[in-house]
């Protein structure tokens, strides 16, 4: 017996993209928790970036504004970090988000048992099914995380403007904020991938006979 050639990556992307497009609403729900969690992460960090830029400027007005804005300047390192409480909240929100993604993806796998089984009857290997789910999750992750990071960054700038005043615009930390936003996007993509690993393995292991099952 022969073997099948590997499925070209471009084809896999095409199939995954179609699947997301056709199930836009479900994808939106899966992605929403990711958008929110990444937005929160990015918001907190952008606020810190802006406060640090202000602190670095070192003017008495800046220090005044920071103290009025409720920042803790007692740290001797000369930088402002997120408070422990904030860090906990961020970690917790990311955790909740991963659990949400696992849950949504497991439901998607259950809904699609016939489709997955049929694909296997048509010659899809376990790894093809696995790859399709991973690509779908990456695409969802990329879109959701970028949207979330962008939202969070904008919210961070606006809220800092409100609490610290227009002073933050004079030495606006473009590079710091850009790198924070990129990092948040990356973390979001990673979370989306982590969340889909178990559901995707479950889908890949599904037996082709499942496709034949007739609901009684």
């Amino acid at each position: 017996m022969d073997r099948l050639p590997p499925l070209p990556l471009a084809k896999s992307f095409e199939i995954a993209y179609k699947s997301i497009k056709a199930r836009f609403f479900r994808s939106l729900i899966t992605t929403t928790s990711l958008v929110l969690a990444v937005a929160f992460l990015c918001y907190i960090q952008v606020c810190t970036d802006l406060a640090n830029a202000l602190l670095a400027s070192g003017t008495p007005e800046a220090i005044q504004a920071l103290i009025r804005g409720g920042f803790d300047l007692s740290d001797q390192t000369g930088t402002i970090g997120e408070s422990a409480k904030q860090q906990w909240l961020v970690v917790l929100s990311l955790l909740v988000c991963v659990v949400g993604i696992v849950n949504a993806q497991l439901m998607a796998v259950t809904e699609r048992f016939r489709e997955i089984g049929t694909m296997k009857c048509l010659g899809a290997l376990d790894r093809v099914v696995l790859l399709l789910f991973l690509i779908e999750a990456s695409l969802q992750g990329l879109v959701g995380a970028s949207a979330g990071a962008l939202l969070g960054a904008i919210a961070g700038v606006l809220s800092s403007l409100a609490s610290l005043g227009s002073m933050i615009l004079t030495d606006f930390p473009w590079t710091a904020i850009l790198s924070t936003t990129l990092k948040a996007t990356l973390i979001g993509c990673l979370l989306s991938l982590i969340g889909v690993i178990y559901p995707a393995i479950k889908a890949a292991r599904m037996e082709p006979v499942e496709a034949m099952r007739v609901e009684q």
Partner: protein
Amino acid sequence: MEHAIVRTTDVTKNFQLGQHQLEVLKGISLTIAPGRYISIMGPSGSGKSTLFNMIGGLDKPSSGKVFIDEVDIAQLDAYELAWLRCRKIGYIFQTFNLIPVMTALENVTLPMTFAGTSGDEAMERGMELLSQVGLASRYGHKPSELSGGQQQRVAVARALANNPAIILADEPTGNLDLTTGEEIITLLKEMSVERGVTIISATHDFKMLNVSDEVIWIRDGRIDKIEKREELNISVGTIHER
């Protein structure tokens, strides 16, 4: 003797239900010659689908062997099994099983994509197959926009995508009304005659009898009898003429 496209030797299948063991197939041995139209007939629950899954390499027998083209499929690894399912066998299901997010044409070309056919060639052959089943104009439609009969026609085109040697159809008319079911049976028969593909169809639809070269009657997990076309005309033809 003519070479067999499908051969099973003493295939049994048990399902474990709690502590209880359910014997579904109790020793099925059959030989199917290439290019024939075979119906596996039997009442609901007699084990047709189970046998079907064994022949299609979708499930493993508890004992006994299944040979496709004289290759014991229990010996195949995952890659070879995928090749067998993709290139050698075309499946048709009672529930059509088109991929809901893909158009008719995309459904037909999917097995070609898995087989490594280039996009242009797949597209061309896909359209050819769709026009053969009379649905060329509906190539851009999703399964949800097609009737049951039309979906099953697309499924027939998809089953033929990689020029398989065998088409396995499990109750292909089970979810269709009388006339649509008849159309699908005629279509399958045409394909079998034109392309020389072996068709094995599990069914309890007596309309299938007219087109079958051979009917394998299954009862309670055993072969009850095997009738050739000539014998059929005598035993069943009279009943159906009324």
